[in-house]
């Protein structure tokens, strides 16, 4: 998280460092895998659907974090690529008679291609104006999907996608989506641990310095944007299979808020953050909207509390708690913020973040 840490510390900020033993990647992911495989046997059928949505959110948010946590870009168009992925499945089934499995393969390709093309335009701007340009581009894609009724069935959306029989039973669908989610997260994990990922983080830390070092910043940003879009499309394809349909609201800018919140809750500075966030947000939202009439107030206040008191996300909070418990050194990221408001800019200014 942003703060006044020393350069040495900041350089050491890697998902795998300063992590308690049980949270070290291999242990953590193994535990997550065991839980994910066992979970549907421990809950009722309705909750399996909630879990499926959690899987989709996890991929969606992790793809977003390629932009946000790794490269420092805030995009409001991310939902558009998610929606395009979902429509890739439903439209190819509707117009071409493709199997949803084939459509699922198309989803990241279509979203990635669109991400590349729109990324070329959006990356003409930087930081805040980049964020706002993505808002305009995203809304444009939403309007097209909404208006092009003969092709997309407009606002009614496309529902009732026919799945292969094997995906009919809820459990089978869950495990299929789990497989897709695991695959996507594994690929993104490898990419972010590669030199490519390291370069992206160098750009986030200091864009200018990265430029001086000879890194072709724009090219890397475009690559990150394209990769993020492709996996947003992947998540969208999963959604289409989950819900057996797609509709224009999936592309709306307010849908982009979801992966942002998820990432924020989990923590954007670790690769696992969005996955943890997806579990918390998915379950929280299910509980709040089921039980509260004025769910917006409750959800808003919970989120506000998190932002105010746990700005590093749950993962960092857990690390800090662990550190205090074991008496070890606190994790990177100083909880105390500089006191003078706004003016003292933290070094890792998000490129899309304001200012």
């Amino acid at each position, binding site marked *: 998280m942003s703060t006044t840490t020393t350069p040495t510390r900041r350089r050491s900020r890697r998902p795998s460092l300063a992590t308690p033993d049980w949270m070290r990647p291999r242990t953590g992911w193994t535990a997550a895998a065991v839980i994910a495989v066992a979970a549907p046997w421990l809950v009722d059928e309705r909750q399996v659907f909630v879990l499926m949505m959690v899987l989709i959110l996890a991929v969606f948010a992790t793809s977003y974090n390629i932009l946000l946590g790794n490269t420092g870009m805030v995009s409001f168009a991310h939902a558009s690529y998610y929606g395009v992925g979902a429509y890739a499945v439903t439209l190819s089934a509707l117009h071409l008679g493709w199997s949803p499995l084939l459509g699922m393969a198309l989803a990241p390709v279509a979203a990635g291609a669109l991400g590349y093309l729109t990324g070329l335009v959006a990356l003409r701007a930087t930081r805040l104006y980049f964020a706002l340009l993505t808002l305009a581009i995203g809304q444009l894609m939403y309007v097209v999907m909404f208006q092009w009724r003969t092709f997309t069935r407009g606002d009614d959306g496309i529902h009732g996608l026919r799945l292969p029989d094997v995906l009919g039973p809820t459990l089978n669908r869950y495990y299929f989506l789990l497989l897709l989610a695991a695959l996507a997260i594994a690929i993104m994990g490898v990419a972010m641990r590669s030199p490519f990922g390291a370069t992206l983080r160098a750009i986030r830390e200091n864009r200018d310095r990265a430029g001086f070092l000879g890194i072709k910043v724009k090219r890397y940003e475009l690559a990150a944007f394209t990769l993020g879009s492709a996996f947003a499309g992947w998540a969208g394809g999963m959604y289409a299979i989950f819900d057996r349909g797609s509709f224009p609201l999936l592309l709306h800018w307010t849908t982009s808020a979801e992966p942002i919140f998820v990432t924020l809750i989990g923590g954007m500075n670790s690769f696992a953050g969005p996955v943890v966030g997806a579990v918390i947000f998915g379950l929280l939202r299910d509980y709040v*909207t089921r039980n509260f009439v004025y769910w917006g107030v409750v959800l808003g206040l919970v989120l506000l509390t998190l932002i105010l008191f746990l700005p590093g996300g749950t993962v960092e909070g857990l690390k800090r708690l662990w550190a205090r418990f074991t008496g070890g050194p606190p994790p990177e990221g100083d909880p105390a913020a500089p006191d003078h408001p706004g003016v003292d800019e933290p070094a890792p200014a998000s490129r899309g973040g304001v200012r």
Partner: protein
Amino acid sequence: MRMTRRDARRHTGARRRVAAALLAAALAASACAADGDGPGSPGAAGDGTEPAGEDGADADTDADAGTADAPEGDPLRIGMATSLSGSIALFGVANQNGAQLAVDQLNASGGVLGRPVELIVRDDQARPEEGAALARDLILSEGVDVLLGPVSSGVALAITEVSEERKVPFITHTANTSALMVEQFQPYMVSVVPNTYMEARAQGVDLADEPYTRWATIAPNYEFGQRQTQTFVDTITAENDQVEIIAQQFPELGEADLRPFITALISSDPEAVYSPLFAGDLITFTRQAADLGFFEQVEFTALYETDALEELRDEVDLEGVRGYSRCPFTIDNDQMRDFVDAYQQAHDRVPSDWACMAYDAVMLWAQVAEAAGTEDADAFVETVEDFSFTGLRGETHIRGIDHQAAVPSYIGRLTFDDELGFYVYTDLQTVPAEDIWLSEDEVTELRGG
């Protein structure tokens, strides 16, 4: 008597509004209030979602005068997923009130199959994925026997999929896309609302006889508005070859400023304008159009429903305007008169179309269950085909091929009602469903054989 109740309500309303000023307190308080409607009282969801300051009286206090045997046993459950937030929330609240009244009356007269009936209402936020999730939730966790709702067609299409997958009856009473009967038909779905095709055709056929040839349209820019306008245009131009469509406008749903659209319409100099705008949009349109001298220049016809008319009061002169309605409370029969009385008792206002049709949906389900002798879903499907139920629109037949109730479309002229203080429909003409719905051959053809 009614005046005093209204005054009392206004008084509490005013106090509440003063409180609105203290927002800091409000935030904390609203969280608490939400808490009160929380998990502890799932069955009370029906009452808990009443908007503050409105419709304060509780329906079931008026309905316990029943003399029949008290129902006993496990309650039968009706799940309603409708929009209680967002710009179409008004309809969702009316849906809830209408259905709740039906449930209270059923319980007062011995329940259904001798068992009590319970209504569980959830907010779909007008989002299809929420609607589908809620429908699934209502079936899997609450064990509902039938699904009701929603307002939005996109949500309805998502719910109908869940209904088919889970084999639970789904009665649509507000969302009316004809895709439910055609492309996406499934046997557990029944519709008690005239679908987009029927509604627009009824109006096209009716208005083709009017002496106007230069027509323009203005409709909300989404599936319903587009579909309805297209069917209207196709119908009226087929019925009357003199008719010419000279301008079409499609503002966004919820557009706050319709004046540029209105002036664009005026500039094209039409004789008459057809509009499927509704609710808040129609109120906005009427006000802004009046200021621009629109009503003096063109003949206007639209879906003026009770909520909009109630809000407009006498602000704009609408005397004699030709409007159409799905289920106006001025229908002249015993069932409707009783319903309006009961609704006024409970909510201190007359019911809107959306309350009436939700009431009908509950009554249809109850009558089918009684006729079948069971709440079983497959028995419901078997019984509902070619079933006739008695609702607020009289004896209504359900067609086998697409499970569309043969509900008429209502066309009338607006006239000011001094007692109520707003415009209501008179000279209601009914266009029978049989004259306007898709023929069975057309349905088969559109489904792709």
